[in-house]
């Protein structure tokens, strides 16, 4: 059965709802809020700007920052070189070279896994596509570099992430899907922040996953 449409005359409706409180007090209340903010800003109670890089804004927990390649418990990459990320990548910035893994149950691992950070558009499709949660994102966004070559992140750079405690984990939609946990303790939230580029330290503990065993339920 077709229901008759209800027609609302906008002008009639406006006149009906019109009142002194709405027409006069409303703008005054709004003006009060504006003046309040102005006073706060003038007195320094609230700052619209922050003193970057000494101060930083808190980013959302699912920010799409620089990628992380996660590791198995033994420290080897979880990645099985399936190319799902490279296939999904709209920027064509992931280069993988697979190799034969000695364990037939793993079968395949990346001998090379490079992400061209200058090409990357940080869309996170690679993370969505990954069936192993081998690639996730951090909240790291400061990727400045002095040379072109430094922006080409290889497997080692993607796995050892000294900056991570600073920024924390980012976009990680498949956390539940793969049933894995990341052993990672974020640093205490101190106000002190480093300015400038963080240099890469060689011997940093990798981020380990609990290995997912398909033979167990």
């Amino acid at each position, binding site marked *: 059965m077709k229901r008759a449409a209800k027609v609302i005359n906008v002008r009639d409706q406006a006149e009906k709802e019109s009142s002194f409180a709405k027409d006069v007090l409303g703008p005054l209340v709004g003006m009060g809020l504006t003046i309040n903010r102005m006073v706060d800003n003038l007195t320094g109670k609230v700052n619209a700007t922050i003193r970057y890089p000494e101060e930083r804004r808190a980013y959302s927990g699912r920010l799409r920052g620089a990628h992380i390649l996660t590791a198995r418990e033994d420290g080897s990459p979880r990645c099985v070189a*399936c190319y799902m990320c490279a296939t999904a990548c709209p920027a064509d910035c992931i280069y993988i070279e697979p190799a034969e893994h000695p364990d037939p149950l793993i079968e*395949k691992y990346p001998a090379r896994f490079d992400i061209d950070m200058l090409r990357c558009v940080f869309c996170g499709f690679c993370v969505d596509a990954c069936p192993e949660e081998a690639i996730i994102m951090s909240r790291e966004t400061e990727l400045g570099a002095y040379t072109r070559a430094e922006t080409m992140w290889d497997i080692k750079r993607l796995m050892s992430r000294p900056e991570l405690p600073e920024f924390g984990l980012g976009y990680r939609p498949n956390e539940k899907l793969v049933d894995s946990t990341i052993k990672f303790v974020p640093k205490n939230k101190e106000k002190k922040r480093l300015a400038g580029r963080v240099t890469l330290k060689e011997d940093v503990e990798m981020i380990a996953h609990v290995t997912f065993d398909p033979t167990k339920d």
Partner: protein
Amino acid sequence: MPKFTLNGQEVEAKAGQTIIQAAGDHGIEIPHYCYHPDLPIDGNCRMCLVDVEKMPKLTPACTTIVNEGMVVRSDNPRVKEAVRGVLEFLLINHPVDCPVCDQAGECRLQDYYMVYGLHTSEIPLGMKVRKRKVIDLGPMVVLDQERCVLCSRCIRFFDNVTGTGEMQFFGRGDHVAIGTFEDRPLDNPYSGNVVDICPVGALTSRDFRFKCRVWFLHATNSICAGCSTGCATRIDHRDGAIFRMIARRNPEVNRSWLCDEGRLSFHELTRSERVIQPSIKGSDGVQTPITWEDALQSVDQRLKQIRDANGGSSILGFGSPSATNEGLFLFKRYLTEQLGATQFEFRIDSEDKKVLDEEDQILRHFDKHPNSMGAIKLGLISDDLDGIDGAIRAARDGRIKAAVIIYFNPLVRRPSDDEAEGRIIELIDELKYSVVLAAHKADWHASADVVLPVTAWSEEEGTYTNFEGRVQFAAKAIESAGDALPIWEVFAMLIHASGAESRWMSAENVFATMTERSQPYSRITFEQTQLPGVVLASS
């Protein structure tokens, strides 16, 4: 010719055809794993079950021969439910390791799951039967027993096509697995075919393993240039590199098969360095690079000088049985019409005399060149010279002063090939002037006066004439290296350089001229050279 009703439509089948074949002829694909057009019928996968009126049970379409008046449905709910059930059964013990499986993207399990399945698995992972993975079965094949759907195509291939019977089922019930006795390697020359016919990722190619995910590849139809059989193939390539070559079905030539030598022959293209630009020997005896225009001007002028001094019969055209018909045709046309040359030859070694000799009863021929028959049909053969030895003698006697030589590295190398190259050096050394057209660099190019880079097989389109005179078209798959040009283009430019009309813009144009001017090719059209090819009338 029995008529029957298929999904409500009355269609005609050929006598003795099974339902699956007749349906395929009318564009209806009945899902299947074990059925293969070139293997005996087995009927074990049960995916092709169809509903035939008056039969109480669903019947497999691959084993049931069409009878007059049969009423078959492959699309009713009963059939769909059955197919879905069989698919679910096939997947319960399948490891579903598609991310690391090379077959992903061209896997029948994936394809049919998307059409008939789309179910959620009801078996917990721990309940699956585990079998062995990554079993090395020799130079061509890697076996994964878990991914197998036990269709027995590989077993039937070795039993019925090669007759070697290496593979068999082992075990019983849901523990059945395919394999070879004690994991012995598959070392017969056709073992690579089981990778092609395996509908899932159980048998994968050792050579192609992990090289590239298949959805990145572009496919080009071609003809194998490994020997004179002329098997139909498909070249899979990406970014200008060939990743694999697989068989294309041509019931008239290779059915669905390809030999291992041929399958891997494309590697020969990248094994040695390529000639990337024309070069000419200076007065100091050293080869220096030169532009195409200058090179062709120089070649045309020098050859004309020699003709004027010694007559056209002093110029030898030495073709290659690995070149396309189009290239050889313009090569001969330039030398005869512009220079009046009369001497032509292409035979480097005695292998070429075995054009018709079979190496085995399945596919391979002894002659490892794709177009020997084409060279013969185009008349690049001289009873007088009878091969390169005669040419060397003639050059020594002074009857031949100059030669235009086309040489391609054979894609399937034989020990005799080095010796053959030695003969070319001998010939060049006896000549006053020599022009070499080659795709790959060789030490002996230093002795030639001019070296011109040409495209190799897979980098140009053209037709090849196989041992039985079947003309088949091979398309261009990848770009050539450097400045290399197809042979027909080189000679089209030479004809232009020598002042004659030259209007060929493609291999197809040259083919059209060839059918007008060359008697053996006179009655065929370009369209006919597509699958399955056209056999030349014997002269």
